[in-house]
């Protein structure tokens, strides 16, 4: 029994510690506490929280819901679709009034969507599409206009280098990235003198882009432009070009609008990024959910604006966000 006590005492201390930490870590705790007692519970499950984009998206949701007197629990699926399924059933069984989902695997969500619709819990998908067959199970999807983001990138490039010989760094398993490249290519048809030399996979990360870009520099000595599908990718491209002393001869355009991306624009290393507005995606998704719960009808597909950021408006964009 002695060892049982030894196990239990730290456990109890630990739980006390968690409760303490939890209350303390809520930045606006007074508001959260009053909401906790009165408001409805909403849940959000994101494929990862290890990306500023989703942190901002969550902030947008939370602000809007808490302003309405409700509260939001955000869960991190850690790129694990089974964890996402479990997280969602936890929220559903707890009686969440509505749930926001950014799917890890859009094929794998069906079981959770069925469970939610049986329990009449409305679901809004954020920053991603779902399968056509599953559309009737959700309220709507709210995502950036990724096709437009690709078009803006192509336009920006055409303005500075209408005869660009370029390469594309892709993440072809991701629907948002597929849309960006599609928009980019559609816009390129307006500029027949521009030529895509190659399309390569670069994982959407900085460390993924670097080696791929170094190989491309070797293979295409005359390349003078790059379209990278997001800011982290573009940062890897910059680093590769920099170490090959070719940065000043190559124009890089991308999509994202992260702090790091804008700083690279201000430093003259990156030409443009088509900025997304994750907080706005969150805010709009929350508004749609509240409208749906009031019985109003909601559009099935909501596109959130994107905006081209170059050296001209970088300062202004940073200040306003």
């Amino acid at each position: 029994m002695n060892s049982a006590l030894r196990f239990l005492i730290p456990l109890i201390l630990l739980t006390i510690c968690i409760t303490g930490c939890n209350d303390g870590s809520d930045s606006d705790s007074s508001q959260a506490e009053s909401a906790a007692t009165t408001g409805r519970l909403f849940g959000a499950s994101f494929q990862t929280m290890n990306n500023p984009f989703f942190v901002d998206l969550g902030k947008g949701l939370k602000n809007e819901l808490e302003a309405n007197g409700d509260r939001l629990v955000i869960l991190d699926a850690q790129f694990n679709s089974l964890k996402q399924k479990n997280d969602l059933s936890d929220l559903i069984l707890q009686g969440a009034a509505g749930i926001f989902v950014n799917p890890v695997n859009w094929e794998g969500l069906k079981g959770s969507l069925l469970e939610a619709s049986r329990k009449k819990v409305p679901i809004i998908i954020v920053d991603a599409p779902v399968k056509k067959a599953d559309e009737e199970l959700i309220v709507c999807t709210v995502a950036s206009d990724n096709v437009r983001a690709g078009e803006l990138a192509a336009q920006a490039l055409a303005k500075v280098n209408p005869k660009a010989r370029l390469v594309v760094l892709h993440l072809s398993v991701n629907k948002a990235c597929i849309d960006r490249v599609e928009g980019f290519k559609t816009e390129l048809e307006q500029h027949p003198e521009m030529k895509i030399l190659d399309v390569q996979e670069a994982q959407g990360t900085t460390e993924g882009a670097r080696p791929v870009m170094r190989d491309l520099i070797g293979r295409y000595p005359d390349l003078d432009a790059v379209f990278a599908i997001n800011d982290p990718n573009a940062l890897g491209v910059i680093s590769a070009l920099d170490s090959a002393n070719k940065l000043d001869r190559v124009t890089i355009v991308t999509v994202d609008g992260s702090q790091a991306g804008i700083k690279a624009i201000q430093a003259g290393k990156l030409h443009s990024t088509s900025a997304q507005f994750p907080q706005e995606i969150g805010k709009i998704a929350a508004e749609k959910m509240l409208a749906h719960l009031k019985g109003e009808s909601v559009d099935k597909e909501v596109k959130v604006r994107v905006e081209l950021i170059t050296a001209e408006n970088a300062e202004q964009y940073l200040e306003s966000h």
Partner: protein
Amino acid sequence: MKVVRQMVPLLAAIIILLLLFRIWVPTFLAPENMLDLTQQISVNTILALGMTLVILIGGIDLSVGAMVALVGTTTVYCLSAISGDTQNGFYLLISILAGLGVAALFGIFHGIAAAKTAMPPFIITLASMLIARGCALRFNSGLPISIGDQQTILLEIGNGRLFGVVPFPVVIMLTLFVLMALLLHRTRFGQHIYALGGNREAALYTGIPVVRVEVMVYLICSVLAGVAGLIHTSQLYSAEPASGEMFELTAIAAVVVGGTSFTGGRGTIFGTLIGAIIIGILDKGLNQAGIHYSLQYIVKGAVILIAVYIDVRRNRQAV
């Protein structure tokens, strides 16, 4: 009696955790929520059952997460290739056997490589984790393969309920638990496992068929991972080549929290079940109590540390 006494702190921990979360989450102990808990832990528990045997003989299997993905993709790929848009029980059986067969091959390889070469199991299974993951990603260019709506038997495995109450994954988990408990605690093979983990040299000299036991243990671990993979795939309505990452670590955590010694030779199947339940309660409780996701990592890490610390202390007292 000794086994029961060893389990007292773990059982007490379960009760305390349940009551604590009941304070935060009023609906926590509702039957539906508890039934959902058993369903949520099923995949991890099945992985942990196999992992217990491997750890008992002083080994480790890092490939079980990748095996989950590989068995799922192999099965669904075979099924859609041979049965097309129709449902056919016989074709399903063949596809499942193909999936589990692949897992069995990996298991046999692990066993032989571990027993016959000087390569450490950590490295052998690290390598085959990469190989199995790569094989899974070969299917459908790494994208999820959905299970057709007409494949109701396969979808039933992960989503159906026995008599409309008990989810099938729970039925499968409990059946495997009983089988593994009997195998480990009531057969000569089970005694051999403990002997092998306690002292390999001695086991060899007393005439225990060391190679055969080791191959069997890794084989069982891989095939159980395959079964977990089938449930996982069915629950997700699709086979996902990239899924199952880090599953091996959660399974190992359940085994060590359940009191199995990481150096082998000591531990029980019952302990592993309790370990998996504790981790499951933590996951569910922290989620439903609305604990920030960053704190969830910290708490789970701390619980594993505490559990293993107590185990190590108890072990020292016993010696």
